[in-house]
Structure formats: C-alpha cells, structure tokens
C-alpha cells in the first residue's frame, strides 16, 4: 500500500514537471518531456500493474517497447 502511495506521488510530481518543462523552449525540451513520460509509463506498469513481481521477460519486453517508441520519435522530432 505504501508502495502505491509513493508511486502516485512520484507520478503526480513527474506530470507537473512535464507541464512546467513544456513552457521552456529549448533544444532539449521534447527529449526531457518524453523521458519523463517514459518514466511514468514504467512506474505505472511496474508498480500499479504489479509487473515488478512478474517474470523478467515481461519487464524487458515493456522496456523494449518503450525504446522502439521513444527512439524513432526522438530521431524524427
């Protein structure tokens, strides 16, 4: 239960941070926003969905998906 509360707080902080960062227009803004989104994605999957307790293959597959999603976007952007 404490794990869920910590995860919730971290996710809320990262969401607010994303919104704040988006107001600054730098070369790295999009990269930072997407990395923060990736961290939130893993936070939800690993802790809210309990994937942290699942077989390692499932956790690796999710990281592979995230790489396949984020890398092309960062290259194309």
């Amino acid at each position, binding site marked *: *239960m404490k794990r*869920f*509360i910590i*995860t*919730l707080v971290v*996710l*809320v902080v990262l*969401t*607010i941070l*994303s*919104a704040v960062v*988006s107001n600054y227009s730098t070369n790295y*803004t*999009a990269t930072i*926003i*997407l990395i*923060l*989104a990736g961290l*939130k*994605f893993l936070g*939800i*999957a690993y*802790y*809210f*969905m*309990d*994937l942290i*307790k*699942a*077989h390692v*293959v*499932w956790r690796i*597959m999710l990281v592979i*998906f995230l790489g*396949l*999603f984020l890398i*092309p*976007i960062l290259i*194309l*952007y």
Partner: protein
Amino acid sequence: MTTERIDNKNIYYPPGGILIWIIIFIELFTFGIAMIVMVYSSKDEPEVFHNSRLLLNSTIGAVNTLFLIVSGFCMAQSVHFFKQQAISKASLFLKLTILGGLLFLGLKGFEYYDKIEMGYSIGYNSFFSFYWMLTLFHVIHVLVGIVILIMMYLDIRKKGAEASLENIEASAAFWHMCDLIWILLFPVIYLIF
C-alpha cells in the same frame, strides 16, 4: 473462503493473465506506430503542428492525466484489498476508479465541445486529424474500461471474496492500459510540437 493465488513469477501468468498482456502489447504498438507517424508527418508541416498544438489547452490534458493516474492508483488499491479479502475497501476503491474514468470523460467531452465550437474538427488540418483519431480511439478504450469495471463491481458485490481474482486482475490491467496509452499520448499531442 480463500482468494486463489496465482504465481506471477511464472512467465505464462503475468498479473491479469497472458491474454490481456498480448492485447496490451498490440494496443501499445498500434498507438505507438500512430504517434510515430504523427511525428513523421509534422516534419512536412512544422508550423501547422506547432500552431495547432498551441490551440489545445495543455492544462486540461494535464488534469486529465492526473485523473487517470489517481484512478490507476485506486485500481491498484482495489486489487490489493481484494487479495486481502477486504471486500468493502476493494469495492470502494473500484467505485473511485470508475469515478476517475468518468471525470476524465467529462473533461474530454468539454474539450471536444470547445474544439467543435471553434471549428477545429477532424478535417481542419493534419494535426487535428491525428488529434481526433488518436484521442477518440483512446476515449473508446476508456469507455470499454468503465463498462468492464462496472461489471467487476457488480460481480464483487454479488459474490464477495468468491469473485475471480484473475478476472479482477485482467480488468485492472485493461484499465491501467488506458492509463499507459494516455501517458504517451499526452506529451506527443499536447506538449512537444
């Protein structure tokens, strides 16, 4: 009355079951490819994408993100309490999860109404074509998720601790999937262009 235990360390039994995870990966890849195509398309019309993105209210997007995150937290709590056989708490958190989903849909409906009123429909430009297709497809998932959660709530109310843990975990996984998709949609549509 005991709640069945599932060994999630077994590769064939991730939380919610292997079938829901196959669906989750298919959905993630579908949305992921669409978002990559959207970013690729933005290279042809960077000004259109930037100006159109500024027409969206990122505060609404951020508040909707918070609704889904808190809703996901309630869903995780509900599954946790169900495993502890604290049925009344599990039901309460399930109701809060549904409320989070309804708040998301309410705010999304307000946003859609606002965009239609201003004439930013699906054919307005290529940015709004992606905006409507991706967000509407996501909204359909949220609607389906809410229906599934209502069915789960009724099942728990009827059967109590005898309700199937696997069904509840699968429903929870579907709900969290809506959250995962939105977590990626929000920055791509509302923030980066």
